[in-house]
């Protein structure tokens, strides 16, 4: 088991380097440098001013050198400074936003697990029942609905017309003056829509996945055997079938972490939540290379860790994986 993990860890290094090289190259291939985004189409900004800004940011150096400069800093866990005019360290910018994004994503992951797995099991066990058909319908709606559209619709209904929930942001203006419970309730009210929305797509996918896994397992011979031995249906389903059906779900969960972070871009922008997604979107639009690279690195690391955790847990529950 230890060698397995070690091997996996070492394999991560070239993968990680590959990811950064590709990201760096793609980022610089996109038209428009940060200094150009700040200066183009503006009278009063001369070409000389642009050249001067380029020199200040080191953008006049050849691309490979820029990459190695960046990599050298990264080894020392220094992501550099943002090219936006605030010039703050990238770590600082990301760290002030990472907790919000992680918090929302963990909440929505929990929501997905708590809701999707039971739905999947129930609709597999009671295949073609009314419940199954209803969830199938729900799932397809879930797949088909654009998140931003649904978000705006919910805001309109719950925020503007009914006035039950706040529309955007994370805290009310008087947040600082509230007591502990007041703060919790305020935060909770602000979180309902974003968490629901960020879970929505995943909910549909995972419940479908759970259902098909369960169906797969129920058809297996050993389930037939278990039934034949006269075990109660509950034991057959929840003890024998479920454990095996959950295995692939573990992997999918590990793989879904980067997807959740990617999804943050949309709902954080719509709900004006000061998280990583919003930062990322702004940084991409402004071609703020260090911030974009910083976020991509964190995304890559999270993805790799997610995969690793998935593989390890897989290996833990299924001995066949370990032996090799």
């Amino acid at each position, binding site marked *: 088991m230890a060698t397995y993990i070690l091997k996996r860890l070492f394999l991560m290094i070239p993968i990680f380097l590959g990811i950064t090289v590709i990201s760096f190259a793609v980022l610089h291939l996109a038209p428009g440098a940060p200094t150009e985004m700040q200066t183009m189409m503006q009278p009063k*900004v001369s070409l000389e001013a642009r050249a001067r800004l380029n020199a200040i940011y080191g953008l006049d150096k050849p691309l490979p050198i820029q990459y190695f400069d960046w990599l050298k800093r990264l080894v020392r866990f220094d992501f550099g400074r943002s090219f936006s005019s605030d010039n703050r360290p990238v770590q600082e910018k990301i760290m002030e936003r990472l907790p919000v994004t992680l918090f929302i994503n963990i909440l929505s992951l929990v929501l997905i697990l708590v809701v999707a797995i039971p739905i999947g099991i129930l609709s597999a066990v009671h295949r073609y029942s009314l419940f199954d058909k209803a969830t199938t319908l729900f799932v397809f709606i879930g797949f088909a609905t654009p998140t931003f559209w649904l978000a705006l619709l919910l805001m309109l209904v719950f925020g503007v017309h009914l006035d039950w929930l706040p529309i955007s942001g*994370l805290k009310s203006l008087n947040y600082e003056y509230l007591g502990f419970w007041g703060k919790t309730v305020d935060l909770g009210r602000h979180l309902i829509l974003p968490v629901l929305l960020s879970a929505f797509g995943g909910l549909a996918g995972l419940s479908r996945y759970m259902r098909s896994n369960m169906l797969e397992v129920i058809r297996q011979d050993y389930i037939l055997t278990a039934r034949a031995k006269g075990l109660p249906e509950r034991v057959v389903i929840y003890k024998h079938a479920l454990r095996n059906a959950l295995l692939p779900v573990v992997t999918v969960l590990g793989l879904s972490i980067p997807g959740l972070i990617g999804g943050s871009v949309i709902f954080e*922008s719509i709900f004006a939540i000061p998280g990583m997604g919003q930062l990322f979107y702004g940084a991409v639009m402004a071609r703020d290379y260090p911030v974009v690279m910083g976020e991509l690195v964190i995304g890559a690391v999270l993805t790799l860790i997610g995969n690793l955790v998935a593989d390890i847990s897989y290996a833990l529950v299924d001995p066949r994986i370990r032996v090799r």
Partner: protein
Amino acid sequence: MKAPAKILEISGRMLLVWGVLALISCPACSRPEDSSETPGRPAAAGPPCYGDTLITGSIGEPSNLIPILASDSSSHEVAGLIYNGLVKYDKDLKLVGDLAESFEVSKSGLVITFHLRKGVRWHDGQPFTAADVLFTYKTMIDPRTPTAYAEDFLQVERAEATDPYTFRVTYKKPFAPALASWGISVLPGHLLEGRDIMKSPLVRHPIGTGPFIFKEWKAGEKVVLAYNPDYFEGRPYIDRFIYRIIPDSATMFMELKAGGIDNMGLSPLQYARQTEYRKFKENFNKYRYPAFAYTYLGFNLEDEKFRDRRVRQAISYAIDRGEIIEGVLLGLGQEATGPYKPGTWAYNPNIRQYPYDPVKARELLQEAGWRDADGDGILDKGGIPFRFTIITNQGNDIRARTAEIIQRRLKEVGINVNIRIIEWAAFIKEFIEKKAFEATLLGWTISQDPDIYDVWHSSKTRPGELNFISYRNTEVDALLEKGRRTFDQGERRKIYWRIQEILAEEVPYVFLYVPDALPVVQARFQGIEPAAAGITYNLIKWYVPKTEQRYKIVTVDR
């Protein structure tokens, strides 16, 4: 999220440098009857009183609150309330003293002397003096300062603080836009001198002389300012100013309706169709006045097809501007005839006009040698059919729809038009800067000073410069040079009027429309007086009657 503000972004931010906020308006110009919408409910009586909070929504987050380092409009909008310049534009867009009590320009136009206000204090209590102005100037021209706006200040030959309250600059050559350039925010020298300005705490915690004092900045969330009790023009009535960052404009509109923000700029659609119900009218006052911007169709003059002036004139006749304004702006705009705003002193009303006239357009095209020889409905010349592509930037629906209307109208006179919509950065970088286009639909913001040298002078046709249509006219060149060396407004008016005559004759651009600015403000705010400079020029005079105040908690400490 940037896209909707494209029109403003081009030089709109330069206006902000001069301390005029984003919602710029028109002078007593044109249509007074609809320059401002009737308030939805009668203005509550009562004298101005202190208190309450104004919450504004913004698509973008400020990046740097030392304004000379920032190039985004959000930064300038917030910093404009915290800092002052030496001069500013008043409500009628006349240049007046701000931190300077008075100023004079020498007869030669080479020396400008500013007499500074006495008794002004920085928000940290230190006195403001000419040393601060000198420091700001030195920072602007320092090659290590990452500012994009050094240009105007590099023209200065000598700057000196002759005494604590007198600041004098001498120019190499007379430079008319110079005076306005001193509208840049003056920085506190005592806090920045000898330090790396990029790493200064003032980047995120600015200290100025302005009507509002910086309180806090929550990244991605909001910037909070509080009133300055001893502002030299008087304490603002509003206690707090909160700038909320809401990246999505649809969300912002809903926040407005739900009371989460108090003002924003509306789109024509929101103004005309989505706010015309009783409840909204009761709670909000809508305003409307021509924006300082225009949209145009620009030809690449190096393209063979557009060399002939008659072709360009024909296209100008073939486009129905009224139809574009009705259909795309929902009537919320007016026709543009040149690069200035109708009603301003630089605008020449007596120039050649191009009313919609397809017959004349066809005649002109025929004169220029374009006829439909093969009978396919498309004009041709030497066997080459007349077709070209209009490019415009993605994310601006109004421009995309304008292009479609132009496409249809030009088809009627036998010109086949394609439309290509390209992401902003790629659009500028790959097409505009490389001059790899036939025609483009774009907008400019009109600056307060009529100097349009950068857009029209033939020396500004290098890749990356703003005369990307490659317009070259020796008379215009000479006039533009003269215009920036002349201080007398009457003289300048003659110069810029002549330029407009030439442009109208030559049609390097088809000038299309001047859109309206459409701000909306929660009805509890009183004291708003729309003027040439928009509505926010007198923000410190806005107030909310005691009975209608919503937010009570305010602590002000220094």
